[in-house]
C-alpha cells in the first residue's frame, strides 16, 4: 500500500536512483498524469448527462454547478475548505491504521465521540475564557475520539477481535451515545432534532476573512503536513509501514508490532475526534444528530484513492470536497433529482480507478514495444 515505495522513479540503471529528475520534467509528467483523471471525470459526466437529459433536465446547468460552485466566489471556497477539513482528518484516520494493515471503519463513531467530548466541555464550562476553553474543547474532543478507538485497539490486541467488526459495532453504539447526549443531557428544547445547547463563546474557533473561514482549517493543514512528514521520514512512519508489509519480519527486526498497530488505531481515533471537535467549535457550535455526515465513507475513499500515501490525502480530499460541495447544489440549480449526485460520485470513483489501469496498461504496452525494438536492434547489430 505504500506509494512512497512503489511510485519511486522508474530507473533502469541502479546508479541514478538517488538523483531526482529535474523540476520541469516533474511538472510535465505531473500534468500528463492528470490527463487520465480528467478523462475519467469527463466520462462520468457524459454518462450522467445522458441520464439527466433522459429525465428531462438540463445537464449543462447541472455540471456547471458541480464544477464551479467551489470556485466562483469566496463563499464556495470557504464551504469547500470547511468540508475539506473533516474529510482530510477522517481520511488520515483511515489511512494511518491501513499502513499497519488495520482497517479502521470506526472514524464515524470516533468523530461522534469527539463532538460529544468537545460539546460537553464547551457547554458545561462555557464561562471559561477562550484561551483556556478553546484548547480544552479541542483536546477533550481529540481524547474522546482516541478513547473510542482505543476500545477497538484493545479488543484487537488482547482478544484478536477483528477491528472491522468492532469499529462497525462501536459506530452504532456511538449513535446511541450522541442521541442520549443531544436529546437528554444537553438537549436544545426548541430544535426539532437531536441537537445540544450551544457551546460557550470562548469555545468557538475564530474565523478569518469574509465569509469567515474557521481556523480549524489551518489546524488541519498543520496536522496533514505533520502527518505527511512523519509518514515519509520518521521512524514511526517507517515502522507503521513495515508492520503493514510484513508483521513477522518487523517483529524480528525489533519493531513492537502490537504497539505500532495499537498506536496507529489510537492516533486515528484522535484525528477523527479532532475532526469532531473542529466541527463543533468551528461549524455548528454544538453537536447534533447527523453531524458525522458521510465523512467516514468519503474518508475511506480518499484514503484508498491516495493509496495510503498521507502526502496525497489532503489533495485527494480537496478534490472530493469540491465534488461534494458542487454536487450538493446541482439539484437546486438544474432541478435534476438529487440521486443523480450519488450516481455521479459512484461513476467518477469507478472511472478514476479504471483510468489508472488504462494508463498502466498503455504504459506497459509502450514499454514492451520499446524493449522489443531494442532487442531487435541489438540482435541486428550482432548479426
Amino acid at each position, binding site marked *: 500500500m505504500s506509494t512512497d515505495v512503489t511510485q519511486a522513479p522508474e530507473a533502469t540503471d541502479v546508479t541514478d536512483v538517488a538523483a531526482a529528475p529535474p523540476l520541469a520534467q516533474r511538472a510535465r509528467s505531473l500534468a500528463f498524469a492528470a490527463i487520465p483523471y480528467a478523462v475519467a471525470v469527463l466520462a462520468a459526466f457524459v454518462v450522467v448527462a445522458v441520464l439527466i437529459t433522459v429525465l428531462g433536465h438540463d445537464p449543462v446547468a447541472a455540471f456547471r454547478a458541480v464544477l464551479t460552485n467551489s470556485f466562483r466566489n469566496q463563499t464556495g*471556497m470557504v464551504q469547500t475548505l470547511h468540508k475539506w477539513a473533516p474529510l482530510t482528518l477522517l481520511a488520515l484516520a483511515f489511512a494511518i491504521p491501513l499502513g499497519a494493515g488495520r482497517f479502521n471503519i470506526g472514524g464515524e463513531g470516533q468523530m461522534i465521540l469527539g463532538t460529544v467530548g468537545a460539546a460537553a466541555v464547551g457547554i458545561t464550562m462555557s464561562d471559561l475564557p477562550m484561551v483556556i476553553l478553546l484548547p480544552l474543547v479541542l483536546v477533550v474532543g481529540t481524547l474522546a475520539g482516541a478513547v473510542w478507538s482505543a476500545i477497538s485497539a484493545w479488543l484487537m490486541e488482547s482478544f484478536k477481535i477483528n477491528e472491522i467488526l468492532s469499529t462497525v459495532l462501536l459506530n452504532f453504539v456511538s449513535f446511541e451515545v450522541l442521541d442520549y447526549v443531544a436529546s*437528554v443531557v444537553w438537549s436544545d428544547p426548541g430544535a426539532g432534532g437531536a441537537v445540544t445547547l450551544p457551546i460557550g463563546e470562548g469555545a468557538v474557533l475564530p474565523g478569518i476573512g469574509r465569509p469567515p473561514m474557521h481556523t480549524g482549517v489551518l489546524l488541519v493543514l498543520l496536522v496533514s503536513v505533520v502527518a505527511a512528514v512523519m509518514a515519509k521520514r520518521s521512524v514511526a512512519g517507517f515502522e507503521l509501514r513495515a508492520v503493514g508489509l510484513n508483521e513477522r519480519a518487523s517483529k524480528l527486526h525489533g519493531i513492537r508490532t502490537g504497539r505500532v498497530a495499537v498506536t496507529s488505531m489510537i492516533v486515528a481515533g484522535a484525528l477523527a475526534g479532532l475532526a469532531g471537535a473542529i466541527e463543533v467549535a468551528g*461549524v455548528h457550535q454544538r453537536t447534533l*444528530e447527523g453531524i458525522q*455526515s458521510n465523512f467516514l465513507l468519503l474518508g475511506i475513499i480518499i484514503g484508498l484513492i491516495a493509496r495510503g500515501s498521507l502526502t496525497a490525502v489532503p489533495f485527494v480530499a480537496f478534490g472530493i470536497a469540491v465534488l461534494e460541495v458542487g454536487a450538493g447544489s446541482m*439539484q437546486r440549480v438544474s432541478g435534476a433529482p*438529487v440521486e443523480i449526485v450519488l450516481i455521479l460520485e459512484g461513476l467518477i470513483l469507478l472511472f478514476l480507478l479504471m483510468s489508472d489501469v488504462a494508463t498502466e496498461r498503455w504504459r506497459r504496452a509502450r514499454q514492451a514495444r520499446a524493449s522489443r525494438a531494442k532487442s531487435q536492434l541489438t540482435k541486428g547489430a550482432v548479426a
Partner: protein
Amino acid sequence: GCGGSGDDAGTDSGSGGDGAKKQVIAAIFSGPTNDADYNAVGLKALKAAESAGAKISFSEKVAVPDVEARLTEAVGDGATVVWTHGSQFYDATAKVAKNNPDVNFIAEYDGVPKDQPANVWTIDRQFHLGFYGMGVFASKLSKTGTVGYVGGLSLPFSMAEVHAMEQAITDTGASTKIKPVWTGDFNDAAKAQQFSTQLLGQGADVIVGSLNVGSTGTFQAFEGRAEGDGWVTAKYTDKAAAAGKHYAGSLEYDFDKPLADVLGKIGSGEEKGNYLLGFDTGVTIKVADGVPADVKAAVDKAMNDVKSGAVKVKLDTAKIG
C-alpha cells in the same frame, strides 16, 4: 485565507432584477420530496407559492451539516426568500440570515428562539396541540386501555407530544395508559414494525405513530389482525391508502396557508415574526371512515376546544423513558 481579490460577486445579482417584486424562493428539505410525508407537504406548499407567482427552486435530502452550504449558495444565486423545512435547520438558517440581512428567511422552530435575527420568520409547529387531539382520539379508540406511542428520536417535541396526550386523557377523565417507545430513527420502518408488534403483544390496541416514512412499519404490524381489532394513526399526511383497514386517521399538517401567509407578510415588509401552527392554521386530525362516530365527535370537540382556547395544552418537554 483563500485569496483576497474578490468581493462577493453573487449577493446582489438577484435584487437588481425587474421592478416587480416577484419573490424568488429557495427551499431546503431534509428528506426526499416524494416521501408522501413531511417533505411532500413542504413541496406542495412550495408549488402552491409558485402557482401564486413566485419563482422557486429547492434542494432535498439535505443533511444538517450541509445545510449552511446550501443556504449560502441559494442566497448567492439570487433567492429573495429562503425556507428551511424542518426545525433541525434553524441554527444554520439563523446563522446565514445574520450574514445576509438583505434576504428573508423562513425557518421552523418549536417555540420562540432566542436572538431571532431581524430577517427571519419562524413557524412554530406546536406539535403538542395536535397530539392533545390525538390523545383524545387514541384514548377513545382503545378498548384495552393501553395505547402505544411510537416515536423516532426522543426529542423534546416528542416528549411534549406524549405529555399532551396524557393531559388529554386526564382532561377527559379516562384511565388510558400510554406506553411510549422510540425506535431511534423516524424513517426505519422495520424497527417501527417490531416495536409496534411488541406493543400490540403487550396489550396495546392503538398505536399512535409520530414518525416519518417509518410509519409504514406501524401499519404493517397490524398485518394478520382482524378488522376492528386495533387501530393505528399517523402524522403529517393522509396515509389511508398505505395503511390498510386498521387505519384510524392522521394528524395532518398543511403548509400551504402558513407559507402563503408568511410570504405575504414578508411582501408587505414584515420581515420578522413567529407564525403559530395550530388547528386554525392548517393542522387537522382527519378521522378515517371506519371510526365510530362518537370517537370522531370527541376528536372534533377536542380540536375545537384547543382552537377556541377552552383548553390550554401545556408544553411539557420533561423527559420520559
